[in-house]
């Protein structure tokens, strides 16, 4: 049987929430411990791809997947031209500026005129600082961002925090919040039209499943958009 729809799922911190949601829809037979990257759910005709979260927008934008589940942080960073019909509610986290405690004790963010930050989010970081008239040098890293200030690579970092435990463990303090993020459902623009019936049905089922699921992020944790420069 030909799979009707392909869904890109994020490996890592959003995977449990995504699988739980799919489970509520009756999708079964996914072996998380397997190293396979593609699964097929014969009953619903879904094909599931397990991908690095940052790659998900590209798969959906180019139509290699019809739908995807990905954090709002990545959508804000990449601005892919896709539909984003559902806030899935789980995977709440915040994108913040952080710095070592010693620096924080004598630092005044109002006086920043030039900063160097290490981050996985070069675009959001640059936008945040330039919007405030602060010159910024971005050191783009792919992981272990917290290490950068400890070894003198950059004084500050821009990174996602969930509990704040990783920051604390590395002697870092949050200075400012840039944005908040939860998991989103994204849809390829052509799939929304050409697979209209199947996609709408899936979105409706997800909505129903979300309504009956407990709210998993703190009350009032509404996601604020970053004030953005008007694109010409």
């Amino acid at each position: 049987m030909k799979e009707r729809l392909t869904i890109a799922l994020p490996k890592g911190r959003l995977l449990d929430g995504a699988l739980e949601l799919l489970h509520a829809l009756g999708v079964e037979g996914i072996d998380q411990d397997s190293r396979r990257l593609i699964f097929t759910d014969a009953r619903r005709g879904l094909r599931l791809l397990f991908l690095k979260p940052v790659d998900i927008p590209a798969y959906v934008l180019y139509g290699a997947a019809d739908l995807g589940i990905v954090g709002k942080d990545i959508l804000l960073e990449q601005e892919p031209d896709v539909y984003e019909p559902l806030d899935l509610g789980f995977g709440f986290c915040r994108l913040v500026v952080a710095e070592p405690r010693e620096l924080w004790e004598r630092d005044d963010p109002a006086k920043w005129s030039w900063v160097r930050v290490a981050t996985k989010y070069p675009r959001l970081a640059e936008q945040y600082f330039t919007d405030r008239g602060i010159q910024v040098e971005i050191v783009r890293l792919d992981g272990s961002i917290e290490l950068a200030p400890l070894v003198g690579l950059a004084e500050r970092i821009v990174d996602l925090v969930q509990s704040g435990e990783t920051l604390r463990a590395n002697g870092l303090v949050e200075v400012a919040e840039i944005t908040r993020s939860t998991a989103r459902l994204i849809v390829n623009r052509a799939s929304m039209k050409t697979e209209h019936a199947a996609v709408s049905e899936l979105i409706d089922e997800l909505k129903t499943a979300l309504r009956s699921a407990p709210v998993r992020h703190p009350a009032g944790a509404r996601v604020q958009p970053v004030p953005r420069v008007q694109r010409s």
Partner: protein
Amino acid sequence: MKSRHPQLPKGARIYLPDEAERKRHVEAALLDVFRRWGYREIVTPTFEYSDVLATGTDEDVQGNMFTLVERETGRMLALRPDITPQIARVVATRLRDEPKPIRLAYVTNVFRYDEPRVSHYREFYQAGVELVGLDKPEAEVEVIAMTIEGLRALGLERFQIDLGHPDFFRGLLEEAKTDPAQGRELRATLARKDGSTLERLVADLAPPAHVRDALLALPTLFGRESVLERAAGFARNERSSKALANLAEAYRLLKIYGLAESVLLDLGEVRGFDYYSGTYFEAYVAGFGAAIAGGGRYDDMLGRFGYDCAAVGFAFDVGRALSVMETQGVAVTLPGPDFFIIDFTPDKTVALSLARRLRDLGASVARDIISRELEESVAYARAQRVRHVLVVGHARAGAGEVLAMDLTDESERVLAVGEILEHPECVFRGVRHA
């Protein structure tokens, strides 16, 4: 040092012969559709004064024009970012007294400083039409029907036309009394069908209850005919309800054309919007995340050039069409030359007279001018996708004879030169044009 010769500016694109042939195939197929609907080709300049081009061009596109300076006057020139304003200007200034409707077609390159992605470059090619002087929905339906015929002519399947009307949303914005910044934010949010952000924006806006419900419903107001009924409940202002009536009429006509099942009504699609005064549409093909054709009604366009006149139009993005065809596995046959002549004699007169005779019949004929072994020449011919190889002056054929090899079925025969010259069409049945 690495050679700098391979470098191209960002967004520039080369079409090598196979690619160029595919591109030409797409353009020819679309022009043929346009011709069959009675459209005639028009050619406009690649560059014009930038202020003239800017008239009738959306602001975001204006900001992305390639500009240069005219040497004599210092005036700013621009490469056309869009051909529709150019044609509108030509109609307003040169064709205004022509009887209506005017049907114009074009295939052209356009230039924009866009971020290249999804088969979209900074120089890209459009094939489209303008239909000037008709204000009835029949005009939109004609160009939608042509778009669908174009998609079929390209061999594409699983496509949908997304049909909307900007005034439905504009009427709601007026009722909600939004300022321009709020309007832009709402539009950007709707463009993503981002339900949660929409809820927040609408809550902040606190419009009358029926407008609130309408705005929140927009991302889901797409689908088949039932959308019109659902939307009717929200259309309490004149602008929105006129838009709906217009869409309903277009949809009724599409049903008569037998095209309704290729069309989705979508009141929540608000992209590329400033351009259009009435119904607008985009063509999507399964598996490709961007529209490959789009168009609609822009009755205000000619007015900007001093001539109030209704107009509709649409264009295919040729590069994207090519990309989608590749994704869907649409084969475009790329035949090589019909004949390849290898002449081992010193004076080559036989080769020249055969080539002349076959070319006169319309066949394509290439000659091997390099001296090499027969096997090497035949290998070259195969690589060029040649159909027939004619060998003159080789040990395998006598004097006054030609060894004819058919590379499509690997058959060989020996023919008299005179016979080929007298009756080439009998000897080589199935030769293109011959």
